[in-house]
């Protein structure tokens, strides 16, 4: 079916723009970049159509990539329902964001570079989801990380941007460290890295009670996932990643790349279901992240940061879903999240485009100036808040239900988080669009090339939930238990609505209340506002010690002091000995004669008297 064409189009786009883009016109760049993604999207659809209903895995082997010993890793692509969903999200949302970027980036330098990177990202992301073995998945995994790095640091003159880019890459590397070791273990345990073989073998194994190999593998893979999907403890890079252009935040840091971790966990469901401990860990991480990020989201004023924490939080939901066994729901949420979160970011981008400003405190009352943006953002907001029958409603509820069946407290926690989510999203909406303008002078609605994608995404955010994603995926995953319970649904919906209402209360009905509450909370507020000082703790506990000890201890002391010192000391010792010998060479003949005599007597005594020295 030529699956390879799906990633190949964006790759070609990348190469064309990368090599010729600098001298080419914007039209050319646009055509290549958008065309590549469009082609990819269309080919995905065609392939899907041809393979429908895609009940079994469709595997295509191309060539051997690495072979050594008994390892043979092919460049193999495979399509199943899971990757099909992912592909649709990636190419679909990706297409919209590409189009949106034409408008958003119109006045930026390095235009071609931006689109080249985006195309490259598409290539790696598609490779990631189509990969039929762990190592190829890892290629995509690292590749998207690279593109994320490049795009976060797109405005490389700003040191904040390049710092953020480095942070993103390096933190991801920490996760990948776990992932890599997981891969080594998979190979050791299963003797293969190919998905079909690994998962079949895994599903034949007994469920592990303790810390068995599968659990270990699961945990290690989860470490990788926490890096990529910005979960505790590795989430710190994502908020900083907002230094990148907004379409990047939408595409990479909301809709697609960050969900790769979820995808991977879902992909490895066969392993996880046999490793309940790992599952539990994933669920706990997800839940904790969801809650923690939501609390931070409450206090942020940078609109993109708010959405960034929201992303982290929503990804936490997905982890929770996967962790409690609702892989389908998890992917389902991934699917809906892609729409509304991309939309949130793109809308935010539209605002930024309009104002040149992303601090919520300097917005306000924009409803009239940017109506399309407002309405589309609102659509996203209701969706994320879980207002019934919007996309977010379906998927979030499915996760929460599954969580309830796993452990009720998780449900309650999740529901609380849902309320928080609704609150901070609407806080942002209200701050931006309602009330009085605060400090902006001219604002304008974005051009159609931006608003059309917004509108399309808004539609998807509202109705995307009707796509029966989790049901369609059900055969791929072990059955999740739990049935619809109206009461629970009502509670969570109520929580969402309460959040919205509270936001209205705080930011529209009683402006100024928020500040007072914040002041009342004092230290606690500052703690949350400063994101629990996690960055600072990491810096003080990890980064700085490493740097300092490397510099002071390893380099200055071990390298220069000890090793070179030892060598130099040896040399100095030799020279000192030489100097002594030279000094013995005093020029005094009588001394020399004494030496000769000494030698002769020594010889005489050893040979003549003692009869040999051996």
């Amino acid at each position, binding site marked *: 079916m030529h699956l390879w064409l799906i990633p190949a189009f964006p790759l070609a786009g990348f190469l064309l723009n990368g090599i010729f883009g600098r001298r080419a016109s914007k039209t050319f760049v646009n055509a290549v970049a958008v065309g590549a993604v469009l082609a990819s999207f269309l080919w995905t659809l065609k392939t899907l159509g041809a393979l429908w209903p895609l009940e079994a895995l469709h595997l295509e082997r191309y060539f051997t990539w690495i072979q050594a010993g008994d390892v043979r890793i092919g460049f193999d692509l495979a399509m199943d329902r899971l990757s099909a969903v992912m592909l649709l999200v990636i190419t679909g949302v990706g297409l919209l964001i590409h189009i949106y970027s034409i408008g958003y980036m119109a006045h930026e330098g390095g235009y071609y570079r931006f689109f080249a990177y985006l195309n490259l990202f598409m290539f790696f992301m598609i490779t990631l989801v189509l990969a039929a073995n762990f190592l190829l998945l890892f290629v995509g995994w690292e590749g998207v990380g690279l593109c994320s790095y490049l795009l976060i640091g797109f405005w490389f003159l700003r040191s904040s941007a390049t710092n953020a880019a480095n942070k993103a890459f390096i933190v991801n590397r920490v996760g990948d460290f776990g992932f890599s070791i997981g891969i080594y273990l998979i190979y050791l345990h299963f003797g293969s890295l190919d998905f079909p073989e690994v998962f079949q073998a895994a599903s034949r194994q007994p469920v592990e009670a303790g810390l068995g190999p599968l659990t270990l593998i699961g945990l290690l893979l989860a470490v990788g996932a926490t890096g990529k999907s910005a979960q505790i403890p590795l989430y710190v890079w994502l908020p900083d990643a907002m230094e990148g252009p907004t379409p990047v935040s939408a595409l990479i840091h909301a809709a697609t790349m960050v969900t790769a971790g979820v995808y991977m966990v879902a992909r490895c469901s066969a392993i996880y279901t046999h490793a309940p401990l790992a599952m539990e860990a994933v669920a706990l991480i997800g839940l904790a992240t969801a809650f923690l990020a939501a609390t931070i989201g409450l206090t942020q004023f940078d609109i993109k940061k708010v959405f960034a924490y929201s992303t982290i939080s929503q990804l936490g939901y997905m982890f929770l879903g996967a962790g409690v066994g609702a892989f389908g729901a998890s992917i389902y949420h991934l699917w809906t999240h892609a729409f509304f979160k991309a939309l949130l970011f793109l809308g935010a981008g539209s605002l930024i485009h309009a104002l040149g400003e992303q601090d919520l405190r300097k917005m306000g009352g924009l409803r009239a100036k940017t109506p399309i943006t407002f309405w589309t953002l609102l659509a996203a907001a209701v969706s994320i808040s879980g207002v019934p029958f919007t996309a977010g409603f379906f998927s979030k509820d499915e996760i929460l239900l599954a969580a309830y069946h796993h452990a009720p407290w998780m449900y309650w926690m999740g529901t609380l988080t849902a309320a928080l989510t609704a609150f901070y999203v609407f806080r942002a909406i209200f701050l931006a669009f309602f009330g009085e303008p605060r400090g902006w002078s001219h604002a304008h609605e974005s051009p159609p090339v931006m608003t059309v994608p917004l509108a399309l995404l808004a539609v998807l955010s509202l109705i995307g939930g009707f796509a029966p994603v989790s049901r369609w995926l059900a055969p791929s995953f072990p059955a999740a238990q739990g049935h619809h319970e109206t009461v629970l649904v009502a509670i969570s919906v109520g929580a969402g609505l309460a959040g919205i209402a509270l936001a209205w209360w705080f930011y529209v009905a009683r402006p100024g209340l928020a500040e007072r509450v914040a002041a009342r909370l004092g230290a606690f507020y500052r703690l949350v506002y400063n994101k629990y000082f996690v960055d600072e703790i990491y810096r003080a506990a990890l980064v700085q010690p490493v740097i300092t000890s490397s510099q002071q201890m390893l380099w200055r002391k071990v390298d220069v002091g000890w090793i070179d010192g030892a060598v130099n000391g040896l040399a100095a010792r030799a020279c000192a000995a030489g100097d002594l010998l030279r000094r013995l060479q005093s020029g005094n003949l*009588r001394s020399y004669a004494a030496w000769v005599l000494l030698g002769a007597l020594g010889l005489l005594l050893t040979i003549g008297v003692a009869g040999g020295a051996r």
Partner: protein
Amino acid sequence: MSAAGVPLSWYLVLAALLFTLGAAGFIFRRNIITMFMCIELMLNAVNLTFVALAYHLRQVDGLVLAFFVMVVAAAEAAVGLAIILTVFRNRASVQIDEVQALKD
């Protein structure tokens, strides 16, 4: 002639003593000429050894060797004294401790 002879080893020990004395002079004397004379003393000691051993072996060879040693000593004396002369010309001294410009 009396039958009371002298043990051969006495001769040899006398030679050893003279040899040692020569070496002692070489080490302790500061005048180059004296040092050189001490070498002559050592050569004489060796000669005594040769002669004594020739007696011991009842061979003429030892005497021939002693003879050659004398020639060598004479040759050395000629050259050595010439060298000492040049040293004296350059430094107006034959004190060995004053001839130590060459060192580090």
